[in-house]
């Protein structure tokens, strides 16, 4: 008897063999292009987002796992990145995708603020978020209690909207990928300090960076565990792309980024939440270090630069792998090329279980629909690995 999508997902998280490889395309901007609406409409009009993503599912799907990622709430998007986001239709032309102003928002003194914080520990992460947001969004400065409550309500409303939205997917037997998402504290520092100053921090003040990221771990985990519980989806998407070897050495990853990340993952796993690490960029030299994360409890997403076949050999016995049809081929390639690569992924990375087929990171907005369809159809077409 065929597994349900949720059973398939739970099976691969445990690195076991499902009846076939599940597929989970990361679609948001593509939905706007495919459905013929602007990106501005996608993120600002919930009904249009639903129409667009459902059109993708009905015409290019079905798929197993709904990758719920659309940045439909400016508050939560900026709160998770701690960067100024430029929105289409507001700061950018209506049909462009969101982009980020990367400049020095956090200063070295902000590490000290985190370390010297004396308030209730569970509030630390939220206070850090408000304090950082206030640096580029004046409305967050010295917020009164009613204003804070209004902000929390905006976040809560967004999560309520997502919960209602999930029903459509569950009625179709589609599993939901995550109940919450955010950059990890170390990676947030990189974004908020901006790349060059943060890279110099890793040389000039590594102990401070490590201590500050570690100090945020517990309250970060607590916030997102609660969001996941509220959403009824006990999996959390943690973005860690600034911990890739494109930005840091394996030594820096091991000594500075990994310890707080490991603590966050362990806290999540203890609370019954699956960490999903979104590992953009090249992680080849970090792969073995990922063995320090809880075994058979995590999903590791790769987007193309990492050799996912090597990852299968080095960590495939411990972690569920996710990926990695690359953006270039989805745009410039052909359905047969996509199918060929997906088949290889299914056979080699899917062997023995522990694999979810997906695009490496998001399906590009200008991907050819026939290529996206070829990717989504591949697991059903090819079946379980031979």
């Amino acid at each position: 008897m065929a597994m349900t999508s949720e059973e398939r997902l739970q099976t691969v998280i445990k690195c076991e063999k499902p009846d076939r490889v599940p597929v989970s395309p990361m679609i948001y901007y593509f939905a706007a292009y495919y459905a013929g609406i602007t990106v501005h409409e996608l993120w600002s009009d919930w009904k249009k987002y639903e129409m667009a993503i459902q059109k993708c599912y009905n015409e290019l799907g079905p798929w197993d796992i709904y990758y719920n990622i659309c940045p439909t709430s400016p508050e939560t998007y900026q709160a998770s990145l701690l960067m100024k986001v430029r929105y289409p239709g507001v700061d950018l032309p209506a049909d462009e995708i969101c982009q980020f102003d990367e400049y020095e928002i956090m200063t070295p003194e902000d590490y000290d603020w985190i370390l010297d914080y004396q308030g209730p520990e569970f509030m630390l992460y939220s206070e850090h978020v408000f304090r950082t947001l206030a640096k580029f969004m004046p409305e967050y400065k010295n917020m009164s209690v009613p204003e804070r409550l209004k902000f929390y309500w905006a976040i809560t409303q967004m999560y309520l909207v997502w919960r209602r939205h999930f029903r459509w997917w569950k009625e179709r037997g589609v599993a939901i990928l995550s109940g919450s998402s955010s950059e990890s504290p170390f990676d947030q520092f990189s974004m908020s300090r901006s790349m060059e100053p943060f890279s110099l921090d890793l040389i000039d003040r590594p102990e401070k960076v490590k201590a500050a990221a570690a100090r945020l771990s517990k309250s970060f985990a607590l916030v997102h565990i609660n969001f996941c519980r509220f959403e009824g989806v006990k999996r959390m998407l943690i973005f860690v792309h600034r911990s890739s070897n494109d930005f840091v050495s394996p030594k820096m990853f091991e000594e500075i980024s990994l310890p707080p990340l490991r603590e966050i993952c362990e806290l999540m796993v203890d609370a019954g939440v699956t960490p999903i690490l979104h590992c953009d960029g090249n992680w080849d030299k970090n792969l073995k270090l990922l063995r320090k994360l809880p075994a058979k409890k995590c999903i590791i997403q790769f987007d193309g630069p990492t050799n996912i076949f090597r990852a299968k050999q080095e960590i495939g016995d411990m972690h569920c792998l996710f990926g990695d049809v690359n953006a270039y081929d989805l745009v410039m390639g052909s359905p047969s090329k996509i199918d060929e690569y997906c088949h290889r992924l299914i056979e080699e990375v899917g062997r023995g279980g522990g694999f979810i087929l997906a695009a490496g990171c998001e399906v590009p907005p200008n991907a050819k629909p026939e290529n996206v369809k070829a990717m989504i159809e591949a697991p059903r077409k090819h079946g379980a690995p031979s």
Partner: protein
Amino acid sequence: MEQLRKFVKAGKAKEAEARTRELLAKKTEAEVILQEALIPAMDEVGDLFQKGEYFVPEMLVAARAMKQALAVLRPVFKERGIKPLGKVVVGTVKGDLHDIGKNLVAMALEGAGFEVVDLGVDVGPDKFVAAVKDHKPIAIGMSALLTTTMMSMKDTIAALKSAGVRGQVKVMIGGAPIRREFADEIGADFYGRDSVEARNYARLVVQNEA
């Protein structure tokens, strides 16, 4: 000189600056300090980066040390009319605000003795054309991080052709979604996987070997 190379390679900015001043005080030629210490140090840093032994933070501290040492030499170069190796215009293409890759390329080129004209981000074809006319660079470097914006590279090459300046300048491109076949398809001269490849290509251009 060896000591200065080591300081730059290790990212010891204060020590590099002090050593540069000492060498100048001992009547070592500024050009010699640049060619025999600073640039070779950065070359070595670039090689270590390509080998995967140095990463972005190590490169940036070395570049910081080089910059501080170079700041000591610049007035001397200006006084003597010594020119950089060549000029390169860099920019992230229209509609794209990502600048990390572009900044790393600029840093690698400056470390090799090039003068870099950085047009910033969201640079349309017209701005690249204007920069080629104004600055007469040996090459332009275009960066893109999105599959939607990389198409602007093709538009820029077309604009260079329309303006009659395509033949005056080499075009190098790079960025996460870029491939060599894309460079060939749009008529770019070079695709670089990283900042060191861009630097090496610029050197070939100056030596008329590109």
